[in-house]
């Protein structure tokens, strides 16, 4: 069974792809059949992943040391050989599990959420295609294949954000997401090409062997490789919504809520994190690059959290929290800890999917009313959603014993370990990491605050909107919520400090040697306190109403406006586009019209003129051609007979000597 699953791991992405094909080609008209096909395909993939997962856990770190690789050569030329196939190790299997699990749940949830939508078959087709691409990305054996699926994932994101293409904002958001990601993908492709040029291979395993000793294999200096790493990192930055490419992610909430849950919270956006994790060796080799990643991650985390405080739409807040959490993951990677990053990736996937799906329930109940200020007191109308949402909020805030507590604590811990505060810092930039650590701590506080701000506004108090009568979501939507809630609680326990070999998450998913993690009580207490403080503050402001948030706003209107308007990043970008890029474009347009077109038209004119001259020769009269032909013969004859060349031709013609 295991061998079958291992040998046929390619089936895991293929089945959803097949589902996509079948739905698009044949069953588009039959919505229920399409949904069944899609869900059936992803469930089979899930089962296969579970089989793989169980066996891998049983095998310990065998597969981490010796990944299973099944490839065939796709194409091969001197200096470049690309293989397609599967690379199965613990990290990819973990991702497979997460992706298939979340996708299955989201698809089931969508049955309820998307009920009655005319494009449901299309929706399932897209989701299947997305699942196929994401799973393909996860098990890709080399960077090029990864890039291919990476782009496919981006395409699916585009399709799903713009799912309701009738809405102008949706299609605009889709384009924004696509274009922003493309900007980063350019860097990624450039990085991949540079790696290929320098190392002659894109295979992940070979790269991880070659990169630590890059001076042996290439003529690159550390600076050069750092540049390559940072260029490469642009792709993950865009995909994972890191500053300054984060602008697309909040807008992506225009898509259906299950899509937001699936793609823009749990799976696709972590592709960047996953990719960096895959080639973390590259960054670990280069401390500056690592620091860059960490700075970007920590800054993004803090930055997004400050924006999230003032937002008024549930999904926007969740989107910014996603950006923030992705920043955490990047920070963990920047602290050279694959374990922490992947751990947070997994737990985040569960509780963020939970939160989004809960938000979906709320939106469903409130008839797509966006502003949270219209909500209130939803607790008594939809208890299941309330409780599961509470679990999600607690998890993201990092309260023991929820999943977020463990993963976030691990991130704090690895960052702390790299900082000068820990006393025995390893790495060349302890001071910088200290700042980063402080930023992460502040972010933890802010996270707790804004999550519970939203939570209290939505679920407590009185219902402010008078038009709607909220109701609990149907079973098909609440059951996935409950399942995710359970996972949001228990999934963190695999990271319990002190778990040893064969038990701890860090044993299965790691880079380098396994170390039993010791609980740093100081940090645990600090982060818990920060979270509790944030929660408490939120409760004071929005539940007990002890203080008025309005008063705070009036005290610092500038900061509020800055945060509310997302630091005017979008406007800044628009300004750049309008004033700089458009002007450059105008300039290039003129250049194109007058210079390039002039040259091209000049060639055309030359050809026309030449043709006009030459067509005089081409009379179309066979006799003219024959006449000229025979004139040529006469010339040849005269030439041959007067030059006295004894050529075979003259011999053929009669042998004049």
């Amino acid at each position, binding site marked *: 069974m295991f061998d079958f699953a291992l040998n046929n791991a390619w089936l895991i992405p293929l089945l959803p792809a097949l589902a996509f094909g079948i739905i698009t080609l044949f069953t588009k008209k039959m919505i229920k059949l399409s949904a069944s096909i899609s869900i059936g395909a992803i469930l089979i993939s899930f089962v296969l992943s579970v089989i793989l997962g169980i066996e891998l856990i049983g095998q310990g770190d065998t597969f981490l040391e010796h990944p299973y690789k099944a490839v065939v050569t796709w194409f091969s030329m001197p200096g470049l050989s690309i293989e397609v196939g599967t690379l199965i190790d613990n990290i990819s299997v973990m991702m497979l599990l997460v992706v298939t699990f979340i996708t299955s749940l989201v698809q089931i949830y969508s049955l309820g959420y998307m009920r009655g939508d005319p494009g449901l078959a299309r929706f399932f087709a897209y989701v299947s295609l997305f699942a196929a691409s994401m799973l393909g990305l996860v098990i890709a054996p080399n960077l090029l294949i990864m890039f291919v699926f990476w782009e496919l994932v981006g395409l699916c994101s585009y399709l799903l954000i713009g799912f309701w293409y009738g809405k102008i904002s949706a299609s605009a958001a889709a384009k924004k997401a696509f274009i922003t990601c493309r900007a980063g993908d350019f860097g990624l492709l450039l990085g991949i090409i540079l790696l290929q040029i320098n190392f002659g291979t894109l295979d992940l395993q070979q790269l991880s062997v070659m990169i630590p000793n890059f001076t042996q294999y290439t003529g690159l200096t550390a600076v050069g490789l750092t540049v390559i790493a940072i260029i490469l990192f642009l792709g993950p930055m865009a995909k994972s919504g890191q500053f300054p490419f984060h602008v697309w992610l909040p807008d992506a909430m225009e898509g259906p809520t299950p899509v937001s849950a699936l793609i823009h919270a749990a799976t696709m956006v972590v592709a960047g994190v996953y990719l960096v994790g895959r080639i973390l060796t590259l960054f670990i080799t280069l401390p500056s690059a690592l620091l860059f990643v960490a700075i970007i991650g920590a800054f993004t985390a803090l930055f997004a959290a400050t924006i999230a405080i003032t937002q008024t739409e549930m999904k926007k807040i969740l989107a910014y929290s996603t950006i923030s959490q992705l920043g955490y993951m990047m920070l963990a990677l920047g602290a050279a800890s694959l374990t922490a990053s992947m751990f947070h990736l997994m737990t985040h996937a569960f509780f963020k999917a939970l939160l989004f799906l809960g938000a979906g329930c709320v939106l469903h109940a409130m008839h797509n009313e966006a502003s949270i200020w219209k909500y209130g007191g939803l607790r008594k109308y939809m208890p299941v959603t309330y409780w599961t949402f509470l679990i999600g909020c607690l998890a993201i805030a990092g309260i023991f014993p929820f999943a977020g507590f463990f993963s976030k604590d691990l991130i704090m811990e690895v960052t702390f370990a790299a900082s000068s505060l820990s006393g025995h810092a390893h790495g060349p930039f302890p001071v910088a990491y200290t700042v980063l650590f402080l930023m992460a701590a502040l972010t933890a506080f802010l996270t707790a605050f804004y999550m519970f701000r939203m939570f209290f506004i939505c679920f407590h108090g009185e219902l402010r909107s008078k038009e709607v009568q909220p109701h609990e979501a149907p079973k098909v939507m609440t059951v996935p919520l409950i399942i995710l809630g359970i996972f949001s609680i228990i999934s963190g326990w695999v990271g319990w400090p002190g778990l040893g070999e064969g038990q701890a998450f860090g044993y299965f998913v790691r880079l380098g040697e396994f170390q039993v993690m010791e609980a740093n009580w100081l940090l645990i207490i600090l982060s818990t306190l920060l979270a509790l403080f944030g929660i408490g503050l939120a409760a004071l402001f929005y539940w007990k109403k002890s203080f008025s948030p309005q008063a705070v706003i009036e005290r610092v209107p500038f900061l509020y406006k800055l945060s509310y308007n997302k630091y005017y990043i979008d406007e800044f970008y628009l300004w750049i586009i309008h004033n700089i890029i458009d002007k450059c474009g105008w300039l290039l347009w003129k250049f194109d019209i007058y210079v390039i077109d002039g040259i091209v038209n000049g060639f055309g004119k030359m050809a026309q003129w030449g043709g006009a001259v030459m067509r005089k020769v081409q*009379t*179309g*009269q*066979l*006799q003219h*051609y*024959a006449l000229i032909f*025979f004139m040529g013969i006469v010339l040849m004859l005269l030439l041959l007979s007067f030059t006295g060349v004894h050529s075979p031709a003259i011999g053929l013609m009669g042998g004049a000597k």
Partner: protein
Amino acid sequence: MIDIFMDKFLTIGLEHFLILSGTLFFIGLFAVLAKKNVIAVLMGIEIMFTSVNINLIAFNRYTAAEALLTGHVFAIFVIALAAAEVAVGLALIISIYRQRTSTDVQDFDWLKW
């Protein structure tokens, strides 16, 4: 000198036939190159065919290594070919004439466009 020339002139040999056939050939070629009417062109081609046959037979008569009539056989093949050619050629001319109501080769300028 004149004796030799007269001797050459009066003793009919291979050269005479070759020059005759060559001249005939080029007269046919002249018709092909310089006549407007496509049937005249066809007639020129026929003249060229015939003159080639003179060559074949003259060579067979004067330079054949053995008393074989290979040249004659080939002349017959050429004649058959000429017959086939004139049949197809006239068929083409008539079908073109039906379309264009002209036999002027200068009207047959489809090669141009």
